[in-house]
């Protein structure tokens, strides 16, 4: 009964591969649960209202918070988005509209290269471009570093999302005598909006979680500052400083700040999903 044997063997192979892929899927999410478990167990006890509203206390004094770092991260990401979003979205549109021109191919390749550049190198570039001419660390320098980090991500997702929209919609619009720019802006972009928005949020989440490009651009600040031309605090640099400090309560606060950062990024994701779920699904 060769037929029967082959059939059974095929079923067994299928089951083995299925089990293997389930195991791999589990392995892939284990780190996430470890991170969540660890940060919650270490950091949750230090989270209270004061942690969000108070300033850091001098070493040795108990309590204190990271209000300045929270606001600082907000300002840095805002500067990054202000520069990175328009440039990224517009170049994504350019790449999808003229996808086969030599210049577009060049830009696409360079964007991919930029996407792979380590974030610390981007920090160095921002240091040379902004910090050296200004002769001081500043929020602007940090924002520029984050913008450079966000741009390739946004460019690529914008291009890919626009390309996912079937060509037939573009033809339908052009066939109605709608000019090309209006077709792109009012027909194609709304259809691709959801995907582009995902890309924007992913890049914001990534920028909010970066430490390396901020270390020698925004530097960090133990005092309250919202001035753009002064060094500014951020959650990630706060974590970095507090985690390597030799004080027990500082270490706990670093865990707490990490937990806050994770929750923030998760919240961004959830809110975005709720907002975009029912738009002409």
């Amino acid at each position, binding site marked *: 009964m060769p037929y029967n044997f082959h059939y059974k063997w095929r079923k067994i192979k299928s089951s083995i591969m299925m089990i293997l892929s389930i195991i791999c899927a589990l392995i892939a999410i284990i780190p996430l649960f470890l991170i969540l478990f660890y940060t919650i167990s270490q950091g949750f006890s230090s989270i209270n209202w004061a942690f969000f509203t108070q300033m850091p206390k001098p070493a040795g004094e108990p309590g204190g918070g990271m209000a300045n770092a929270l606001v600082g991260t907000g300002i840095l990401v805002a500067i990054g988005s202000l520069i990175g979003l328009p440039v990224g979205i517009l170049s994504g549109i350019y790449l999808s509209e003229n996808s086969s021109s030599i210049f577009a191919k060049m830009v696409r390749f360079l964007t991919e290269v930029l996407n792979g550049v380590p974030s610390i190198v981007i920090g160095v570039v921002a240091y040379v471009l902004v910090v050296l001419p200004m002769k001081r660390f500043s929020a602007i320098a940090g924002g520029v570093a984050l913008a450079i980090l966000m741009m390739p991500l946004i460019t690529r997702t914008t291009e890919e999302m626009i390309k996912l929209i079937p060509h037939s*919609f573009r*033809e339908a*619009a*052009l*066939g109605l005598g709608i000019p090309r720019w209006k077709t792109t802006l009012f027909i194609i972009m709304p*259809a691709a909006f959801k995907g582009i928005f995902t890309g924007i949020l992913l890049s914001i989440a990534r920028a909010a979680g970066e430490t390396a490009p901020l270390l020698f651009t925004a530097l960090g600040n133990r005092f309250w500052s919202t001035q753009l031309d002064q060094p500014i605090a951020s959650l990630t640099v706060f974590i970095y400083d507090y985690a390597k400090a030799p004080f027990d309560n500082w270490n706990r606060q670093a865990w707490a700040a990490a937990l806050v950062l994770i929750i923030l990024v998760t919240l961004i994701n959830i809110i975005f999903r709720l907002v975009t779920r029912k738009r002409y699904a």
Partner: protein
Amino acid sequence: MTNIEPILKNIIINDDHPQSKDRMKTENLNAFFGKVHALKNISLSIPKNKVLAIIGPSGCGKSTFLRCLNRMHEEVGGTIKGNVLLDSENIMKYDPVLLRKRVGMIFQKPNPFPTMSVADNVTAGLRLNGFHNRKKLREITEKYLRQAALWDEVKDILKTPGANLSGGQQQRLCIARTLAVEPEVILMDEPASALDPISTSKIEELIFELKKNYTIVIVTHNMQQAARISDYTAFFLLGELVETDKTTKIFTNPKLKKTEDYVTGRFG
């Protein structure tokens, strides 16, 4: 009165002139995709307020011909040589955007705009060209949905997404959307080939109605459909125009053996 008379005379003379019966006309039209010569020396008249069917096997250049008539061929990187006339004017001198308002197009697959409601789909061409009078837009929505024989089915769901309609309804929505721009010529690229028989017959009835006011060019793979709805038929083969005549003639007594073989289903 004496001033108007010669003008009137002129109009009457023009109307009797055989050329004025043609809404569009191609003269030695050649179309290329890069180096591929897709259409070879096509000279074809498109008579006013009639239905011209274009038949032929796949890859014979039917769709390319259609897309030359509203310069959509250039959108996909194709090039054109020769003349295409609309009311005796060369369309290559037109701005493509303005041309496409006069020469509308219906595609094989229904393609209502995915982010727009039924009503917004109908008026998309007007709104995106700067027409925003809400009351007028509502009237236009109803007028053209009625013309497209869709009003009764959608009048209570005008605010729902156009993409929620059935395939046949979507295609009639696309027709309403094209009519709303008030074109003179409507190009249809196998408009019923993705639809079931009932939706197909609705579209065919609609085409019959539309030819009172519009000039229609329809590409079809369905010979019966061509025979049912068209006044004139052109048979294309390998990028060349083989034969064109009144539809009854093409299907009952064609001049060429090739045409007869194709319409009787012996090849193709």
